[in-house]
């Protein structure tokens, strides 16, 4: 069985090597911050703060530092988040650059935030980064710079277009704001907030009747809880938070196709967590992609070697088709919880069916 695990580890190592970041060593003795939910309070967050305050966090892994920075940012410790992010020597992923930009912005270091963006190679194609850059420029009243950057920028999503529309509004070009905002509204008809800048632009262009209609829409359209536009804007364009939110919604709706796509996006961001891999595995299994589901579960176990649910799923997925993996999983479960009679029964079942 060791052979199987080694094989898997090799495959994973290969997958990691194919990504645009150098593989990072696995620090099994380090605290594992990846299980921490940064959106809402959970008690392991205290662990991050204790670590930040009391240990040499320089020794932490890349992933742990990233998580530490996220937790610090979530709790408004932007200065401390900058310290952690600055201590990462490795080439920073696009997401890490995004976090650094966000941390400087929320810390009030606007010029430094803008410098980070200007010095980032992906500053024309990395949309979360571009969108945050635009947001900062607009808040500084420098809408003209948004417009001039956009001319060079070949990529845009509707958030980009939204900020560009606001930039034109700042630049008193209401005739350019209106069609742009209308396009954004067409894609997000329930995003009532969009009608406020539209109304202002219509007023400036002296289209008063339409402006009044837009104002009324702003006041009356009820915003759905999972409005994509609001989610993305209110999370400062944080691609991970936003994708996580969509993933949460997809999971609650048991939409395995969306779960797969969103999980893969997060893995692309190098945003791993045990929970992510477990849900991803379930979605893969529903799509009858058993081998990939197993790989996802092995990743979950790599992050948290005592994660019972991962072993349970491994057993469940493989008890009929790949008994070796199932047997290894059930042995691990018994090791984790020797008194659990269900695990013993499952082991007996496997042995009897051989």
């Amino acid at each position, binding site marked *: 069985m060791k052979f199987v695990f080694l094989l898997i580890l090799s495959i994973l190592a290969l997958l990691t090597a194919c990504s645009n970041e150098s593989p990072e060593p696995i620090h099994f003795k380090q605290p594992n911050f990846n299980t921490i939910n940064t959106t809402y*309070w959970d008690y392991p967050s205290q662990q991050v703060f204790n670590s930040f305050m009391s240990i040499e966090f320089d020794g932490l892994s890349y992933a742990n530092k990233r998580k530490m920075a996220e937790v610090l940012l979530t709790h408004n410790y932007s200065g401390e988040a900058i310290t952690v992010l600055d201590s990462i020597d490795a080439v920073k992923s696009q997401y890490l650059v995004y976090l650094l930009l966000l941390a400087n912005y929320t810390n009030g270091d606007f010029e430094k935030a803008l410098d980070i963006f200007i010095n980032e190679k992906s500053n024309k194609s990395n949309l979360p980064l571009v969108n945050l850059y635009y947001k900062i420029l607009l808040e*500084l009243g420098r809408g003209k710079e948004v417009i001039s950057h956009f001319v060079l920028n070949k990529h845009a999503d509707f958030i980009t277009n939204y900020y560009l529309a606001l930039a034109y509004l700042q630049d008193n070009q209401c005739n350019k704001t209106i069609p742009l905002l209308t396009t954004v509204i067409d894609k997000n008809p329930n995003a009532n907030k969009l009608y406020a800048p539209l109304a202002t632009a219509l007023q400036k262009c002296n289209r*008063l009747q339409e402006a009044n209609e837009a*104002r009324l829409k702003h006041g009356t359209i009820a915003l759905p809880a999972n409005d994509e536009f609001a989610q993305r804007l209110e999370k400062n364009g944080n691609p991970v938070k936003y994708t996580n939110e969509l993933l949460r919604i997809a999971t609650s709706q048991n939409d395995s196709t969306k779960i797969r796509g969103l999980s893969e996006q997060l893995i692309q961001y190098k945003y791993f967590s045990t929970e992510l891999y477990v849900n991803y595995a379930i979605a893969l299994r529903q799509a009858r992609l058993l081998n990939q589901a197993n790989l996802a579960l092995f990743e979950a176990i790599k992050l948290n070697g005592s994660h019972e649910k991962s072993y349970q799923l491994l057993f469940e997925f493989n008890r009929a088709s790949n008994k070796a993996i199932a047997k290894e999983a059930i042995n691990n479960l018994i090791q984790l919880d020797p008194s659990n009679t269900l695990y013993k029964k499952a082991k007996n079942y496997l042995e009897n069916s051989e």
Partner: protein
Amino acid sequence: MIKLITQIVLVLSVAACSEKPSETSNKNDESLFTITQLDSDPSLFIHQQKFSIDFEIHEALGSGLASIDIDNDGIYELFFAQYDKNHTSSVLYKFENGVAVDITKESGLGDLNAIMGASSGDVNNDGWADLIVYGIDQLHLMINTKGKFDVKHIYAFESGSFFTSATFFNANNDEHLDLWLSRYVEMNKEKVCKGTDGLRLFCSPSAYPFQKDLLLINNGDGTYKKALEDVITIPASPALGVVAADFNNDNLQDVFVANDGQNNFLFTQQPDGSFIEGAEIKGLSSNLAGLKEASMGVAIGDYDNDGLMDLFLTHLEQETNTLYKNENKWFSDVTNTMGLGAHSRNSTGFGTGFYDLNGDNWLDLFIVNGKIQPIAYQSRENLTKQFSEKPMLYINKKNTFALSESFNDHRVVGRGLTFVDIDNDGDKDIISNNNNQSPSLLRNNTNPDNWYGLNLRCNNRIDYGAKVEFTVSESDKKTLFYRNVHADGSYASASDPRIIITLGDQTLLESVIIRFSNNQSNNVKSLLLANSYTSINCSDS
């Protein structure tokens, strides 16, 4: 009467002895104010609102203060609202030759505690400025007769009423001041809210049922009745700030209500005396991005001299403060283009005001800040320190506001804020009532050499709502400035309503047109005396 020779004396006397700079309009922002926190003398007022383990929402909100000339001697007194229910009361200070004197008891204002704010206005047109003080289940109209106050209960409000701000204004075009009272939420001590660290914090207002503001109509004798439903319909909202002004230049006073985390209200007075709420259609309910913000303080003033009253609102950290430019038929959020956006993101603003603070006649902005929620993972033991933030001074540079960096060392939990020429030297000084701390005095060092002060009166009282247009010329270039007479705005506070016109070495005052609230108007330039306040009555027109 106990005389207290205080730090205020020192500050005022030092300022009085200092040499006047030769130019009045080119002051260095860094030296514009001498800042003193009046904390070394324990006999002076200290705001006390100890943070309890129950994290009751009012503990974070603090109190205001009022500038009021109670004895008509032309020198403003200061009323500091005190929240402490058990030990200390609100205080009234009079200034005699630069000495602050505690005249609380002899003025009849003793034993006023659990007070959140105060507003001033002469409700019976007897020529003596009255005071309304308010808080949770507290509403006392203090009637002033020759400097002595008697309490009067004017309205049988519902138990649990959480009064947060007030303004005296004319709601029906008669001769008497009506009263708007803002209310906040229905407190519920059982409500427990926790932060991202799992520890207690103050619940947001949306955790409680909202209360409705009140419009009380003056019966003509200083008694009040609630405005009828056919006059106004006021939705429930968590209101913290209120101002009255003529926003559409129809010579009727309108009311703007700043709501905490909910859409703001604009009640426009109609010719028949009724009010219609229309903040949404005017672009005032939310900011440019369509977001409802946690509005706390509010300032009114015509910052761009276009003859239209603009609005500035202070907000919670991670929101920006917001400047709404009056475009006549609607308002535009011009916060970012005017340089007021990004730098306010990390502060929680409370008291604020539009006043010319550097003697160039352009309206500047001042804001006191102070957090309202504990920092995650930090002890809840010393919240005052955690909440402390520096104030902000924005100088009006005509096309933008420039943030002055002169307050980096002065961190307080700023709440109420009053603007008053405390030493009658022709510039507005600033005093803040800091939550759970001693007050701050910011003595304005502009000390102009050439200024005119206007004390506009009608119906035997200060003429709230009167408008002033004055033209200043310099090298053949004429600039028209607009002012309105008001004491309201800021946060739970009342300011000195006198108007100041400042002239530099090379500038001339061309005209001063006053439009009183009774619509009489006149050019009063010839009546003004240099370097003093001139009282002008509408009957003089």
